């Protein structure tokens, strides 16, 4: 695990636990953090942690399943690619044998997963249905530092497998004569000899599979030689390569010469990722009618997910961590304790209410009541003076029922959204592929979660739906019907199903009465019959017959009816979650903090901390606003000087200004040397701490812009170094302390990367940070 991997956000995170036993209970408290501690239950954190655990594990499992499905398909493709290579092929018989190779493209983590799946498949399989078993070995960039090691690790990768573990076809180890000259471990002849032996011992010729974990990190010159060498023996050892690439297969073309490419026969395998993965995750975790995650996305969370996925890291890990953070934040809110049930971890409702009406949880209960109050129906017949416990129990009851309300709506929303998408796809298939339908999935989801979908998108679609021909609308209805009549959807949707059935009958009878009147491409056999006879009718009477026009009118009526019903249906299904009672409990929410947690700006934080250390180290002394420079920690004093100095800083001038910055405090009490200064001299502020002239004057004195000025400053430096008794009165030990503190702060800043030594001038340093915004 070198610096690269540590830095890449594609890698999984590494957690180095802080092992200091004294800190443990603090950590526990930190873990059970509450956003609003004032109005929390007493044992709220523990309960909420349990809730969070339940909810998150559920969600996580779901995500894992989806990912697994994604990968299994690809892995199986890979597997039968590997198994079927090196078989005779009618397609094309090149005049020379190539090395079959698969370029697997995707981010490293998912690649590694898939490779493991494939390899596991072949490792455990000494008795599966394949034509030939497959032996495999892995090559990483560590094993390919030079050509010798590369070939050695390739050869040994196979040979050791057979010699040691019994899982695969194993050979009896060779008996070497002492002092004999053998083939070298980095000679491919050895592999050939070994393979010949394998063949004759097991009467079957296994393919040899070589994984190149990630090709980008390997030295291309070595790789190309390695591939070339392998190509010399391909007729004797059926090698198969699998290259792991992160962006595109173009890397192969960019890094390998054509002479090497021409001995390969490359197939591309793209690991599903990017937007499709994201969409399927969202739609199958949160918008799948057949699955209920227990919480619902809020628009904010969705946009957070979307943003971090599309613009920062499009990896599964980042998606998961973002989602998890949102969960965490959500369960840091007091009310979320009700997310699963309203029992508050007690056995039954009564005890829960008892717990609520305990004095120590009064704040919480008040909060709860305040939340529930607006949603309580028939307030007037409540007794005006209602006992506290009664209110609590009422609120408590309301939690339960509003939960069922919320979940029902979630279900309906999912169904509605699905139907919406169904219609959309159908319309697009039937050529209504116009601008109004051009919105992409993410925007639709965002709209839908806001409840804004019904405003415009649904209307557009319904407009188009009204324009549909008879046959088309039949097909569409059938589709919707089929979707809605799936078991776990059907239960909530009887009435619409019933009405659809009704409409279908009407439509069919319309088709029977009038056929060709409706401009429909698709024609049912019934239609044909009718057109035929009515063709003869029309021949006798040229005028359009009334039945037809009537049926047309009827049809239009019917369509109006249908789509208006759907309009109301959508309106009820797709409305937003916010106005639901107590929705904050189940509506997953995010805060700005989450985003910054995910993607902090270290630099900015450090600088701002140095400029205004008070909020960071919140000790009593530093919090008061009008304290002066001298009370800041040394480093930040130094940093202030740094900020208003020039591009180059003369260390001595810097030191002087720093020393002057500390004068006041030293006047106050130079008694306590060494100890952390400004805590102690918090009280010494008023007498000397705020000398108004000090801060403004310093910069002009400090900044040596031109050499000439520097000389001057140098001169007057040693003048007041000698002449002025300003420092003599403090005594040498004070000087020494100042020097020590100066040096320490300088080193701190150096560590933080604010200083840059110049080669030319030893006593000067360069600034690295400029034009900072205060």
């Amino acid at each position: 695990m070198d610096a690269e991997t540590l830095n890449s956000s594609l890698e999984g995170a590494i957690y180095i636990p802080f092992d200091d036993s004294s800190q443990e209970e603090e950590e526990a408290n930190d873990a059970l953090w509450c956003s609003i501690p004032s109005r929390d239950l007493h044992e709220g954190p523990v309960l909420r942690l349990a809730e969070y655990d339940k909810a998150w594990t559920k969600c996580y499992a779901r995500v894992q399943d989806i990912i697994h499905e994604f990968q299994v398909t690809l892995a199986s493709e890979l597997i039968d690619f590997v198994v079927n290579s090196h078989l005779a092929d009618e397609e094309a018989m090149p005049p020379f044998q190539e090395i079959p190779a698969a370029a697997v493209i995707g981010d490293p983590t998912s690649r590694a997963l898939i490779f493991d799946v494939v390899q596991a498949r072949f490792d455990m399989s000494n008795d599966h249905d394949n034509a030939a078993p497959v032996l495999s070995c892995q090559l990483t960039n560590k094993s390919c530092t030079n050509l010798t090691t590369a070939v050695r690790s390739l050869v040994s990768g196979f040979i050791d497998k057979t010699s040691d573990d019994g899982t695969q076809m194993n050979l009896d180890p060779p008996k070497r004569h002492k002092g004999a000259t053998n083939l070298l471990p980095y000679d491919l002849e050895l592999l050939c000899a070994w393979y010949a032996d394998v063949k004759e011992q097991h009467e079957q010729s296994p393919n040899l599979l070589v994984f190149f974990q990630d090709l980008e990190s390997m030295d291309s010159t070595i790789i190309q030689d390695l591939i070339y060498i392998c190509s010399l023996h391909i007729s004797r050892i059926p090698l198969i390569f699998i290259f792991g690439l992160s962006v595109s297969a173009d890397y192969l073309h960019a890094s390998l010469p054509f002479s090497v490419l021409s001995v390969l026969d490359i197939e591309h395998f793209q690991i599903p990722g990017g937007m499709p993965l994201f969409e399927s995750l969202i739609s199958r975790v949160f918008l799948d009618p057949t699955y209920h995650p227990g919480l619902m996305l809020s628009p904010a969370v969705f946009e957070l997910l979307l943003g971090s996925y599309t613009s920062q890291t499009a990896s599964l890990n980042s998606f998961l961590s973002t989602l998890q953070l949102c969960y965490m934040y959500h369960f840091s809110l007091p009310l979320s304790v009700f997310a699963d049930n309203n029992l508050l971890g007690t056995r039954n409702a009564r005890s829960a209410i008892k717990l609520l009406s305990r004095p120590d949880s009064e704040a919480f209960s008040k909060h709860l009541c305040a939340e529930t109050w607006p949603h309580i129906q028939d307030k007037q017949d409540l007794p005006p003076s209602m006992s506290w416990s009664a209110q609590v129990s009422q609120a408590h009851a309301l939690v339960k029922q509003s939960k069922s309300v919320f979940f029902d709506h979630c279900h309906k929303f999912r169904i509605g959204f699905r139907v919406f998408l169904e219609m959309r796809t159908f319309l697009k298939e039937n050529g209504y592929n116009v601008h109004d339908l051009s919105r992409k999935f993410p925007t639709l989801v965002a709209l839908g979660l806001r409840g804004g979908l019904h405003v415009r998108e649904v209307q557009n679609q319904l407009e188009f739906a009204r324009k549909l021909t008879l046959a088309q609308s039949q097909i569409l209805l059938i589709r919707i019907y089929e979707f809605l009549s799936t078991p776990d959807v059907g239960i909530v949707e009887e009435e619409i199903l019933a009405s659809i059935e009704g409409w279908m009958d009407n439509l069919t009878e319309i088709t029977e009465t009038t056929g060709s009147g409706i401009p429909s491409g698709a024609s049912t056999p019934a239609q044909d019959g009718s057109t035929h006879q009515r063709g003869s009718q029309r021949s006798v009477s040229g005028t359009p017959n009334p039945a037809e026009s009537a049926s047309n009118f009827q049809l239009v009526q019917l369509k109006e009816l249908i789509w208006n019903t759907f309009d109301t249906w959508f309106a009820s299904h797709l409305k937003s979650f916010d106005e639901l009672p107590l929705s904050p409990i189940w509506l997953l929410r995010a805060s700005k903090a989450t985003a910054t947690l995910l993607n902090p700006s270290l630099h900015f934080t450090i600088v701002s901390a140095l400029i205004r250390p008070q909020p960071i180290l919140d000790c009593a002394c530093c919090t008061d606003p009008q304290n002066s420079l001298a009370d800041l920690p040394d480093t930040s004093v130094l940093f202030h000087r740094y900020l208003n100095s020039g591009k180059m800083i003369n260390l001595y001038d810097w030191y002087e200004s720093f020393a002057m910055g500390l004068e006041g405090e030293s006047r106050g009490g130079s008694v306590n040397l060494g100890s952390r200064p400004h805590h102690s001299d918090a009280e010494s502020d008023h007498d000397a701490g705020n000398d108004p002239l000090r801060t403004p004057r310093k910069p002009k004195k400090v900044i040596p812009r031109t050499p000439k000025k520097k000389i001057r400053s140098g001169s007057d430096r040693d003048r007041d170094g000698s002449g002025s008794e300003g420092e003599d009165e403090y005594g040498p030990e004070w000087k020494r302390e100042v020097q020590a503190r100066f040096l320490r702060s300088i080193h701190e800043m150096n560590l933080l990367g604010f200083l840059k030594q110049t080669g030319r001038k030893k006593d000067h340093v360069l600034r690295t940070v400029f034009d900072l915004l205060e």
Partner: protein
Amino acid sequence: MPPKRRASPTMQGGPTPVKRRIAVDKTPTKSMPKPANGVVSASASKKVAASAASIRAARRKLASLEVHDRDASDDGLNVVKSPARPAAATTPTPTRHPPVPRKAAPPKPVPRAEDYVQAYPDEPEAQPAPSTSTNPSVQSSVLLPRTLPSTLHPFLQAQRRAILRALAHPPLHSPESQKAIGQLQELLVGTIERGEGNSCLVLGPKGSGKSRAVEEALSSLASTSYGPKQLPIVIRLSANAQLNDKLAMREIGRQLVRQTGSCGFIVPDDDEEAEVEAPVQAEDEEDEPVAPSFALPSQAHIPTLIATLSTLPRPAIIILESFDLFATHARQALLYCLLDAVQSCRAGTGTSGIAVLGVTTRVDCLNLLEKRVKSRFSHRIVRVPAPNALSDFTALAKTLLTTPIEQKGSAQSAKWTRMWGESIDKLFADRTCIKVIKETFEVVKDVGLLCRILTTPILDLTPTSPWLTPAQFASSAETQRCTSKFPFLRDLSYPCLALLIAAHHASSAGHETITFEMLHDAFSRAVSESAGINVSVDGAGVGMHRVKREVMLRSFEQLVASHVFQPTAAHSAVVAKQYVKYRCVPERDEIKNAIERAGYTMLKRWFTRWGQK
């Protein structure tokens, strides 16, 4: 000029087959009749053309070569064995030949058929045909048949074999080299018979036959009958193989062991080691002398080897190839020890003599030696000069070519030798041939090079073209002297040529280092310019058709692979393929000729148009 005109009637037997043979492609035939006035500044184009032509001719001849080898060989047998065969000899041939055309893949059906006619069907009457042609030739002995009668095929084979043998070991018959050999001989004799310690330096230019001189001296010694006591131990070292003194010492030890069987001076424990190895290979004994050599490298004794040299039962002769490189070894320790041993071994003190022969090409070799080494070196220097007169050179060539063949006696062989000599005389009468030899001589006085030049034409001889021609000479001289680094530029594909032109333009615009991007950019611009002018030329290369970038890139890589473009910097993985900097190696006129001969009109136009700019 008179001699030429007089020669012409006799010549007609000679060069006319050339005409007929080359008649396939026009270009060389131009260069064929007038190579005489093709002076030293004969442009590379003609050379390339000539070489290509002769190579093509060679191919076609070789196609039918095996055929003739076949029945030639067993006809040869017939001559020796029984008169009954010839009747039989003709009959099997038709049955045998069908596989032949498939084996010796003649490219087109056309030449195959033609060879065919030459080879077989008219063989019966080809029999009388030469007889009629040779009977006069017996009197006038000028007329050479254009295709060899089958009866003479064995002689042609024999002749080729003999000449190739001779070329492999050219004689050192120049007086100077004989003198050198003589000196070496007496020096060695002194060492062997009187046990002297001798050291000398064999000095001579490359390819002048220093090593051969040494070998001849040694072999002459071997021929003179010495007892097993006196038979010298010869140790050959080469600074090219023995890169440092340690290796050299070990090699000395090994060679000593190999020649003295069990080395007398190795202390017994080493023999034990040898015995440890011995039982392993007890079954096959031919390794017996060898086995100790692997037991030998007991580091303890390596340094003492030199000292023990003089104590050996037999005199030792140590030959140091590329002596000058030995001087570069650390502290010249090996040289010091050897020369010291040489100096220390006194004649007549019973110790057997040592001779150290250093072979080098460096004239200033002695100056490389440190003082202590130099002081121990007897400054005896044997010079092996290269043939320093054109006459010797030509004479050598001629003697090589007229090497006598083995089977003598029969009238046929006499006739053959006469005809062959005739052809050789004609050859050396020809100006081209003279010029080739002269040029070769002027470039390097290297006999080896001469031999290599002579080899190819001999190889190309077939019964259908049995006589050496000047053209073959010229072409093989071209190839063997590598006058042009890239003889095949004209055969490059269209994209490659385009890239060459682009590179040329870039260099003429002042960019010596080129990247693929530059070339491709120039090419695509030229294409778009030429899109305006569309010229319809029949045959290849109508207009500058654009080529896809990837194809260009691959063509570029091909040029890089054949070192037409050479990278200016060491390869680094950081630089992307299309930005690696290269230098275009071929000169302007090479490119020019290539373009002109390749026959892509638009490319030529592009080339020239820029030339004017």
